[in-house]
Each structure stands twice: as structure tokens, then as C-alpha cells.
């Protein structure tokens, strides 16, 4: 299945794109998506402890099972004020 991944804030620069599409096996979870993402963009791997993953309108855990064509948001913490 394919899912669309969108990057927010400074992760856009690290990823070199604001979004991309990933091909994942059926039944894949958020953790599988992240693993594939880190292989493709190693710089993102260092953020693993500090990102939020949104699926549709919900922030979800790493165990969440992805749906085909789902919109996935990857969001870092932002500190500016």
C-alpha cells in the first residue's frame, strides 16, 4: 500500500521535501514506516525520540496500523517564541 508522508517545520529541510510517498506492505505499522523513512533519509533517524506522528487528524503511537492512502504527518518539537 502507499501512504503519503508530510514533514513539518525543520524536518522539511532535513528531508529535502515537504512530502513524499512511501510503499509499504499491507498491515504495516507506524514503526515500519519510520524504519523505511530512516533508511531513505538517515538524518531523520536522529529525531526518532523527538517526533510526533499524525495519521489523518490523530496523533498516533508507533504500533498504529496504517491504512492505504493515509496522510501521515511527521512533526518535530518547535521552541521559538
Amino acid at each position, binding site marked *: 500500500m502507499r501512504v503519503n508522508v508530510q514533514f*513539518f*517545520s*525543520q524536518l522539511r529541510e*532535513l528531508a529535502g521535501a515537504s512530502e513524499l510517498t512511501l510503499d509499504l506492505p499491507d498491515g504495516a505499522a507506524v514503526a515500519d514506516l519510520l524504519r523505511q523513512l530512516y533508511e531513505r533519509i*538517515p*538524518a531523520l533517524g*536522529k*529525531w526518532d*525520540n*523527538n517526533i*510526533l506522528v*499524525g495519521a489523518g*487528524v*490523530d*496523533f498516533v503511537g508507533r504500533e498504529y496500523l496504517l491504512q492505504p492512502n493515509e496522510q501521515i*504527518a511527521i*512533526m*518535530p*518539537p*518547535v*521552541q*521559538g*517564541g
Partner: protein
Amino acid sequence: MGVGERIGATLPNDEPALSAAEQRRYSRHIMLPEIGRAGQERLKAARVLCLGAGGLGSPAALYLAAAGVGRIGIVDDDQVALSNLHRQLLHGTKDIGRPKTDSAGDRLRDLNPHLDVQMHACRFTSANAEEILRDYDLLVDGTDNFATRYLSNDVAVFARKPNVYGSIFRFDGQTTVFAPHLGGPCYRCLFPEPPPPGAVPSCAEAGVLGVLPGIVGTMQATEALKLILGIGEPLIGRMVHFDALKMKFREFNLRRDPECPVCGDHPTITEPIDYEMFCHGGPDLTATAEQIDVRELQERMESGRPYILLDVREPFECELARIEGANLIPLGELPARWEELDREKEIFVFCHSGMRSSRAAELLRAAGFAKVANVAGGIDAWSQEIDPTVPRY
């Protein structure tokens, strides 16, 4: 019970809380059925603490003052700088160099003389945070660093007071209300621990669209007013992400984490923590990396020993001014890119004035680079003392 209901219950019944002048001032509020006279009195009885008088704190405090929030406190230990003025509307050109609490106090008292405006010209630390927050009903977090954001989150959770959160990066903003005691998550439910030092740039390092904190800060003020008044649907358990370039608002539902170290079922954090030494350029960070001034830098560069001159500023700053022969790796990219650096060579790290580079030097030391020195004063000192052809900015 919402904070507004609690405040309302403390109002005296036997004397009018609003003077004739206040009734005229707030007449456009009072004519709203959702606010009315009772709601306006509730605002007058409310006490809001704004952390930071910067990009977010400026619009938040201005609108809360104009709205008639009876006591407004501001915590800030910074002075007004010229580069603040494109977004920090509490301060004017004549205020440059003044403590932000002074100029903010003047502006808020001029805007609304009926208020009790309290200025705390200090850092918000583990030593004073709970004591300062004690005199307020809710907190508006407009700070500019993770150390204070974690501290403000934790003390608001301990005190069971809502924390109206906002943060900004370049063209993006986030806002939500953290209030575990009202059923929502706290900041640590989302991000249990701060990111590694230097990984996330600040406004000073990354730049920011001036109007962006205006939008996010006024959203924070809106949520604070709604909480006080007990009206509408508070932004609890939801985060709004705003993208100014696309002019898009996106909303995400947040979940409280039962394993959260501060608001979870078995909390492990039960007293305030200072993350200063981990997160931001406090004095402890520079303790282990060598400090050299620009004259020492010049001597070492001419000594013939192999070295790397590492510029950790942003690319746009390089276009403004540069030192010949420097390698650019912006601080935010350093953790992903330090493998590019030769560990055998001496590394001299500089930025604009020495703050970011001190963090970079510390990061490199922590990553096992033995020969690292931070250039105190940065390219600004280089320009003044060594090479006046390098423009200052």
C-alpha cells in the same frame, strides 16, 4: 470546574466590580451574551502569567490587557534589541536596551490603566517557577527555549493550572492548551524529553516571519480568554498547526499518555527540573570546550597546524558576511553531519557572536572530538578586531 468558574466564584457580591469607566471601555464585550457583565467581571478577577515578552508574549499580553484581564504578569530577563522589533510589538524603537519587563509594563499600563500589571525581571527557573505561578490562574507559554518550556509544563501540571502553549518556526506555528487536570495531555505526553542540545534552532538562529507570532500569540490570548470565561470549546486535547506560506490550519487530536513522566498514572517527575545545561547556551555548556578569542584564532590559523574553521551559522548569514576558508554546517544540521569533520584536526567553531558555536563545540566534545575550541565573540568580533572588510550585521 473550569478556571473561569473558579474565578467567578471568588468575586465579591456586594460591590460593583466594574467602574463606570470600565463599563464603557468593555462595552463591546459586555454586549456579547457569551460575556456580559458577569463575564467581564470574571476577566477582571482573572490572573494570567505570560512567560516571555517576545514574539508570542507581545500580542498575547496586549490583547489580554485590552480585554481587561485583571492581573497580568510577565516573566522575562532580556533586554529589547533592534532585531526584536519586527515582531515584538510590546516594545518600540525608543526602548532598545531597556529591560523588556520595563517597556512591556509601560505599554500595558498605557493600554489599560485598570489592571494590576506585575513584572518579573528574571529567568523562570526551578527555584522560582512555582512561587511565581502561585499568584496566577493560568499560564501563557511564549518562551523561546526548551528548558523553560519543559519547566513551565511541569509546574503547571503540578499546580493544576492550564498552560496555553504556542511555538513558532520560520513560517510555521503550533498552539494548544495543556491541562491534564481538565482531561487533556501535557507537553511531556507529546515529547517526554527535550531534543538533543542544538538540534532545534531558535528564532534568532532560524529567522521568523514577523507576523507569524502575531497570529499564534493572539490564538493563545483567545484560548486564555475562553478558559477564563468558560465559553466555547477550549483547545484541550487538540493541536493547531498553522502554515503561513500555505495559509493552512491543520488540527490534530492529542492523547494523554498514561505513562507520561509528569502527568501519567505513575509520575516520575515530581519537582521542577532545570534543563538549562542540556538545552540552551547556559554557562555550564561552555565549561568543557576550550574558549579562544579572535586574536588567538588568527594566531592558530597562521601556526601551520592543520585545522578546520567551522561556521555553524545559517546559509543566509554566510551571504551577509564570511571568513575565508570556513566550512559551513548550520548548528541544526551538526548532529547529522559531524562525520564530515576530520577528528585529527583542530576544530575552531564560530557563529555570529559565540552562543551557537559554544553549543556546537559542546556537541562535538560530547561526540568525542578532542580538539575543539569555541571562538568567543564570533564573526562579529573578527570583523571588529581582525578584518574590518567583513561586514557586521
